[in-house]
């Protein structure tokens, strides 16, 4: 390497456990102290004209702290005044020198935290033009999804202009102080549109075979290289577009693009999989961690420049092994560091158990597509990094706090309140912490990862001195006896039964008992309720080869699941032969079956041995019992209104700050 750098990790426990993550690597002429990178992610935090905001600077500063000397890459910038390249309402712009001061704030923040500052050029192509009528692409191929704009074909002049805009923007990013420049060519953005046989049908020199389709990319790489001096230039390209159903590139063609990018001067390759228009799940929790590493391995077999990859590499042991095995060079992260910006730092310091775990729900990305600012399902501080109201600060008055319920809401509230200096006692009638998640984690397709949030909050609670009183039912007498200053009720929802005839029969069972294996369930099952608990238990039972029918009162199925995940559940229900009746209710339950009544009064007989109740209601019993005591009471989580894990965690965190 020839250069001493300030990062010496050898004394840290993380170095001993994961030595491959904390060894240096050379990218071009730049030495990177470790193998960790926060990968570029849009956050919709910038202003409507593309100027950088305080929120974005703080967001990036926290991630820069987290990479402990590694690479922190800011979101991709759009580069054209006409905004065809803009894919997100809060995307940063770089089409004029007036943006340089704002971009410099980001570069400075990253460097002040000791990280290496990277920035990305991103023309969003056929998934862009959020603020204008037409998007741009190499050919007029309509998108599969309605939300995107019609495609306007780029002339050769348009292509030349677009390449120039990349070059000019790269120059501005260098002026802003970024040390690495990256080109985004993934998921359906413009570069990938040129590369893919699905979207590039041109017959001129910018189309044809894979070499023709790469011409625009090659000219862009070569042009950018000329203006960025010694700075490394990276590129993100699909290793597998997952577009075989629409005649996308073959894996062999993708490897040719990697080799050509290397030949053109790319200093590293960020390996990705799938387009937004792909019909396969790629990064959600139903995909096991490490599933895509074979793509990194394939890249390593075809190119010599360093290979980076994100895509379901949440557990540091997986990238550590992959780097050790020589199939990966740099561990990239987006969502895991949205959930916990200091993830790698905690790994290094031997505090893995304090990492707030991403649950791979994709709500962060789903919001971006709906013009909403970044948020995180389980990290309430995400995108509020700049706002002191979201930070944990010492309480002005120390209180004795009784938290009733050791589920997600109660535990979150507990550790936050305890870190603020309160004396916190958590009570639960069960022997274990976790509340509803003890059973909910049994649902298939990755739901066991939901419980990691409980592990995190329990560790944080223990370290903050929270006292646990398990197997203890809280009564008015107990509250009276303990004399807390504040009671936080986190008792979870009530699981209810319907009012139709037959709900009192022996073949009607509760969702938690079914998931816990405590209830006998026949071969033909009706699940009452079409929200997440109903979907989870339906799939749990369908996986046991039972014939399952969901009957739900909500007009829309799985309304409490974000749309970016819901389509997967739809597919899994179809694959497992589950029938769904939305906007319906149970009119009667008998020994042999259920009569389903549609919203408009039609009757459908459904064979069923067992009915599983999953509907929930607010649970105010304890509140009503103790409110006469005059103690300060907060209510959080599903007891207020049954919702989801995210609401429980966010409720818990916010009340933890308020006490």
């Amino acid at each position: 390497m020839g250069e001493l750098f300030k990062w010496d990790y050898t004394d840290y426990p993380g170095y001993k456990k994961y030595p491959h993550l904390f060894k240096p690597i050379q990218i071009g002429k730049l030495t990177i102290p470790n193998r960790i990178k926060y990968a570029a992610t849009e956050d919709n935090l910038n202003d409507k004209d593309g100027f950088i905001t305080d929120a974005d600077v703080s967001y990036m500063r926290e991630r820069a702290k987290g990479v402990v000397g590694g690479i922190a890459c800011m979101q991709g910038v759009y580069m054209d005044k006409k905004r065809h390249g803009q894919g997100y309402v809060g995307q940063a712009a770089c089409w004029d020198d007036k943006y340089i001061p704002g971009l410099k704030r980001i570069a400075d923040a990253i460097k002040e935290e000791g990280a290496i500052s990277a920035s990305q050029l991103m023309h969003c192509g056929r998934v862009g033009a959020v603020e204008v009528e037409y998007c741009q692409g190499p050919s007029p191929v309509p998108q599969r999804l309605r939300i995107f704009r019609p495609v306007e074909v780029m002339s050769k002049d348009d292509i030349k202009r677009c390449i120039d805009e990349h070059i000019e923007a790269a120059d501005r990013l260098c002026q802003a102080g970024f040390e690495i420049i990256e080109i985004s060519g993934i998921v359906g953005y413009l570069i990938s549109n040129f590369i893919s046989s699905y979207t590039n049908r041109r017959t001129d020199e910018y189309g044809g075979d894979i070499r023709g389709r790469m011409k625009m990319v090659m000219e862009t790489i070569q042009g950018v290289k000329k203006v960025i001096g010694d700075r490394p230039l990276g590129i993100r390209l699909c290793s597998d577009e997952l577009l075989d159903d629409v005649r996308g590139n073959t894996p062999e063609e993708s490897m040719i693009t990697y080799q050509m990018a290397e030949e053109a001067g790319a200093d590293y390759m960020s390996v990705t999989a799938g387009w937004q228009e792909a019909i396969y799940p790629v990064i959600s929790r139903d995909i096991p961690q490490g599933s895509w590493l074979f793509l990194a391995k394939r890249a390593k077999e075809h190119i010599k420049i360093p290979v980076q990859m994100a895509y379901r590499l949440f557990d540091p042991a997986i990238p550590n092994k992959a780097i050790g095995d020589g199939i990966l060079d740099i561990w990239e992260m987006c969502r895991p560091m949205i959930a916990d910006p200091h993830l790698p730092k905690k790994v290094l310091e031997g505090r893995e158990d304090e990492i707030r775990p991403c649950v791979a729900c994709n709500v962060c990305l789903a919001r971006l597509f709906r013009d909403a600012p970044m948020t995180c399902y389980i990290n309430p501080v995400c995108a509020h990094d700049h706002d002191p109201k979201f930070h944990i600060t010492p309480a002005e008055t120390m209180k004795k706090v009784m938290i009733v319920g050791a589920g997600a809401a109660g535990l979150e509230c507990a550790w936050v309140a305890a870190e603020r200096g309160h004396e916190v006692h958590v009570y639960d009638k069960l022997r274990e912490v976790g509340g509803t998640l003890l059973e909910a984690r049994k649902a298939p397709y990755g739901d066991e990862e939901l419980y990691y949030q409980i592990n995190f909050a329990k560790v944080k609670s223990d370290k903050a001195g929270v006292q646990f009183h398990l197997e203890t039912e809280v009564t008015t007498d107990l509250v009276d006896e303990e004399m807390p200053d504040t009671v936080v009720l986190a008792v979870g929802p009530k699981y209810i039964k319907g009012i139709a005839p037959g709900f009192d029969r022996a073949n009607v069972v509760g969702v938690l008992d079914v998931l816990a294996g405590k209830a006998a369930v026949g071969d033909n099952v009706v699940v009452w309720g079409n929200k997440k608990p109903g979907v989870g238990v339906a799939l749990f039972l369908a996986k046991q080869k039972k014939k399952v029918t969901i009957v739900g009162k909500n007009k829309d199925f799985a309304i409490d699941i974000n749309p970016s995940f819901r389509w997967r559940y739809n597919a899994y229900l179809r694959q497992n032969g589950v029938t769904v009746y939305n906007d319906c209710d149970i009119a009667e339950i008998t020994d042999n079956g259920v009569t389903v009544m549609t919203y408009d009064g039609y009757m459908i007989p459904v064979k069923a041995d067992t009915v599983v109740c999953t509907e929930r209601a607010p649970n105010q019993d304890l509140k009503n019992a103790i409110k006469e005591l005059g103690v300060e009471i907060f209510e959080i989580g599903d007891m207020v209104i049954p919702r989801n894990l995210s609401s429980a965690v966010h409720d818990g965190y916010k009340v933890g700050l308020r006490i």
Partner: protein
Amino acid sequence: MPVDAEKEISRLWRGLHGAQDSTIKTFYQWRKAAIGLVPDANPSEIALKGWEAMAQDMGKLFLPRLSFSKGEEAFLKQVAGLYVNTWQGYGAVVKVEPGTSPMEVFIKWERCPWPAFAKDFNAPLKEDVAGCDLVLQITIDMVNAFMNTNFKIETQKAIPRGEGICLRRLYKP
């Protein structure tokens, strides 16, 4: 609460036909209103603009359902199947029949409610054929643009022309 299955199916069947009728009636009601608003325009041109809008929406519905995974022959049948499903939704009796080569199928409408409504609303029957042809042409163009295919569709027989059935040939030239 025993379910009277015959009664339930009968109610649903009537409801379905009512909804199908309303869909087509709405088009002709819209046509009449639009012609009234623009009395100097050619009524068929107005109607065809309506068909065009329908076709573009139909094409957008088709795209997410298309897959080339099983090859071109299966894809051709898949496209034909989408036309069948669409017209079945209107209440037509329609099916796909094999052609003389793997890359040819025929879509056969044995019964279609659209011409009857055209008569009820005093719309010329030739406009009905032209409208259908336009819908098929626009949608197949969208499919071709999306999947880089070059399928053609042509009308060989039409119920509104008194030929008993509608017969369309979908093929790769």
